[in-house]
């Protein structure tokens, strides 16, 4: 078969010693970059680009290194989500919801193992999808217009009402707050400055990663200051070795999460965060009997499989059309161009070595990451044994460094602290922080697509209902809302779960 022989040739490229070494190095660096709050895949990849030039790597090897870092970040982001309740990067936010409660119950090792295996399943299935169907899926994704994207985001927001265990009204309010904060800055479709109060620093709006680090990491420090070191209950380290039985509990969720995440990834622009959100909320709607939000293994597996599958899916529009499916793939595209390789519909024909070498490298990177991550669980859980007076200042230092390294602006450090105070206040009021970040993160894309649809129709709102895809998405949303209502009527409502503090 054609694909098999191409893939075989790809493995021959990926198995060159230099490329194997790059896969190993990239996976390790990626895991680390992903785990550090602030540094995520976008900046991880951007930081490494000068190094690929410096080492004189060819395009294939550079792409292999960067993709290994990309996949590694997706694995790494969950580690700090689970251990510290601080997401390492945006797509790992959903993992805090059940991962951290598991850690608090002394099951950190289990949570890390479950999410590691889920990441492996998600990424491997996505790579398989990439191998078999890439050109086909890319053609289908073209027909997804602005109105359809808008419907997709409506679905995402309609389902996050039940995301966290707290009062759904508070969740919605928090999401609205995020949406509002997302409107700050230059309006992309007309260039008008909104809520900038004459400050050029606010023209670009709030960077979601700065908000994320502020809301989660800085507010955590403020809590720590309030409670004093000795009063703080140490999290039990619990078992050091994960149990196979717990890992099995997450398998079904991983498979479902992979499919949802993969679809979100293929759509240019939607990306890994949306994949994680959709995977989690679908899993919760489907399977929740009240345990989600309190440390349910399925609540860890679904979003992790979702965000890893989405990052695999995001490579499809990048390789087949030269259109970025996420922020990270946008950076990778820029690098390809500067290496004099023109991304676009002809990439498969013109650079088969690069495309298939990369695909083969992704399979290898997945195995490396799984093998790398499982034995490290024992080391990671030891973080929990660190005294808080040592750990917390370190987290602050890393947060400051990470944010400054990305934005190069002292102003953003102030923004981060501002978000930290906001996070502190919201948590005091028993709000979950996850919907705030989601509002900020997804709200901008949601607004842009609504504006695009209306620009096309000249202001006529009926365009939103004229596409079959959009109607289908609204139908699914309505069905889910109806299901929720029906479940609550039956008195099967989830008892109010512990908040995500």
């Amino acid at each position, binding site marked *: 078969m054609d694909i098999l022989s191409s893939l075989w040739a790809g493995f021959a490229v990926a198995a060159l010693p230099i490329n194997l070494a790059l896969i190993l190095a990239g996976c390790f660096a990626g895991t680390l970059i992903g785990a550090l709050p602030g540094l995520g895949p976008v900046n991880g990849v*951007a930081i490494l*680009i*000068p*190094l690929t*030039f*410096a*080492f*004189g790597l060819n395009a294939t090897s550079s792409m292999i290194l960067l993709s290994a870092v990309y996949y590694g970040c997706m694995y790494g982001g969950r580690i700090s989500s689970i251990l510290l309740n601080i997401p390492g990067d945006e797509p790992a936010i959903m993992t805090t919801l059940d991962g951290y409660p598991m850690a608090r119950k002394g099951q950190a090792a289990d949570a890390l193992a479950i999410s590691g295996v889920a990441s492996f399943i998600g990424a491997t299935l996505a790579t398989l999808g990439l191998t078999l169907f890439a050109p086909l899926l890319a053609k289908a*994704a*073209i*027909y*997804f*217009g*602005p109105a359809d994207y808008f419907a997709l985001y409506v679905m995402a927001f309609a389902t996050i009402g039940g995301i966290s265990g707290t009062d759904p009204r508070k969740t919605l309010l928090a999401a609205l707050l995020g949406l509002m904060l997302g409107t700050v800055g*230059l*309006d*992309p*479709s*007309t*260039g008008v*400055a909104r809520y900038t109060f004459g400050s*050029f*620093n606010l*023209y*670009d709006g709030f960077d979601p990663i700065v908000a994320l680090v502020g809301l989660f990491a800085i507010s955590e420090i403020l809590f720590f200051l309030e409670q004093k070191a000795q009063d703080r209950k140490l999290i039990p380290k619990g078992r050091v070795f994960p149990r196979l039985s717990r890992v099995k509990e997450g398998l079904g969720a991983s498979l479902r999460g992979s499919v949802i995440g993969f679809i979100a990834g293929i759509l*240019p*622009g939607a990306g890994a965060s949306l994949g994680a959100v959709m995977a989690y909320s679908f899993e919760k709607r489907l399977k929740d009997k009240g345990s989600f939000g309190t440390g349910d293994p399925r609540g860890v597996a679904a979003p992790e499989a979702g965000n890893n599958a989405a990052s695999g899916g995001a490579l499809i*529009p990048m390789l087949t*059309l*030269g*259109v*970025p499916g996420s922020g990270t793939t*946008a*950076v990778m595209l*820029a690098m390809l*161009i*500067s290496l*004099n390789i*023109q*991304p*676009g*519909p*002809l*990439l498969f024909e013109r650079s088969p070595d690069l495309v298939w070498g990369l695909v083969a490298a992704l399979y290898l990177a997945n195995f490396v990451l799984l093998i790398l991550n499982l034995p490290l669980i024992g080391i990671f859980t030891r973080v929990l044994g660190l005294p808080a007076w040592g750990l917390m200042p370190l987290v602050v230092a890393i947060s400051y460094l990470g944010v400054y390294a990305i*934005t*190069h*602006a002292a*102003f953003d450090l102030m923004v981060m602290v501002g978000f930290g105070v906001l996070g502190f206040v919201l948590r005091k009021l028993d709000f979950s922080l996850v919907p705030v970040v989601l509002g900020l993160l997804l709200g901008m894309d949601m607004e*842009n697509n609504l*504006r*695009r649809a209306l*620009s*096309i129709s*000249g202001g006529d709102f009926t365009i939103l209902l004229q596409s079959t895809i959009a109607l289908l998405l609204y139908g699914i949303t309505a069905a889910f809302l109806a299901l929720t209502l029906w479940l609550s009527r039956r008195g099967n409502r989830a008892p109010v779960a512990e908040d995500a503090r």
Partner: protein
Amino acid sequence: MSWKLKGLRAASVAVAVLIAAPVSAAECIAPADPGGGWDFTCREVGRLLAEQGLVDGNVQVTNMPGGVGAVAYANVAGKRADDGDLIVATSTVGVTQIAQGKYPGGTDQMRWLGMLGADVGVIAMAKNSDIQTLDDLMAKLKEDPTSVVTSGSSGAGGWDHIRLLLLAQAAGIDDIDQIRWVQFDGGGPAVTQMMGGQVGVVSTDLGEIRGFVESGDIRVLAVLADEPVSAFPDLPTAKSQGYDVTGYNWRGFYTGGEVSDEDYAEWVDRLKTLYESEAWQETAKASGLEPVWRGGDEFASYVTEQEQQMAEISRQIGVIQ
């Protein structure tokens, strides 16, 4: 180059990357994050200036993102207006922002050094569209400005939008503010949305959609250049079809408004020498730019003229009052 030498060079560059560049006088501000066009301009030009010995030591690149260049503009105007060692990367996008009053001050605040290259504007349709030529498109828009939805990678009033409207004006279309415009996050997404039938026309930089031009998935109605583009000599210019419009997205530099005539002339000289070097001609072509030179006073008056032209059309479509 032997492996050992390559390794040594790699190690030294890696060290430079990790510990920041060695101290040097010349500095280039890229008013954006690493990875974008302005950053590329600073880094490539800085590297070549150093390699050819046109500056002492290295050119240090500082990233100062914010406000589509406004943060750097304010910083230079306020704090470093007389710093003769400093250059700042900019492009047509920066001048558009200035023309629409989104920077603190007009183009007269700075001294404009020169442009070294330009990406070329392009007007493209889906290949299965019934519109075959630029004349067809303009005739259709003239009949009903809302009949074809146009799009590109800038917002309304951005350069992609404005150069399309300049073309429409040249075609004698009066109600250009009626033409529908959709912004996408880059030329690639705009083209895929056009292939999916969501929009009718894409106006953007040729460099952004080269892959689709090569694959033949789209039909290019016109490139907005004086002469046919060297990489695609078969693509017709708008001029050859009777529309006197060019739409370059040039890459160039400015320096502070109080920099001495001596320092200013020296920078213009350096950039001109660089432009004429083979290394720059190659670098520019590799990254999809047409090497184009305008320098010194000629460049300054070009920028002023462009600012006025953009302000005028922005008023016409209601982007500014």
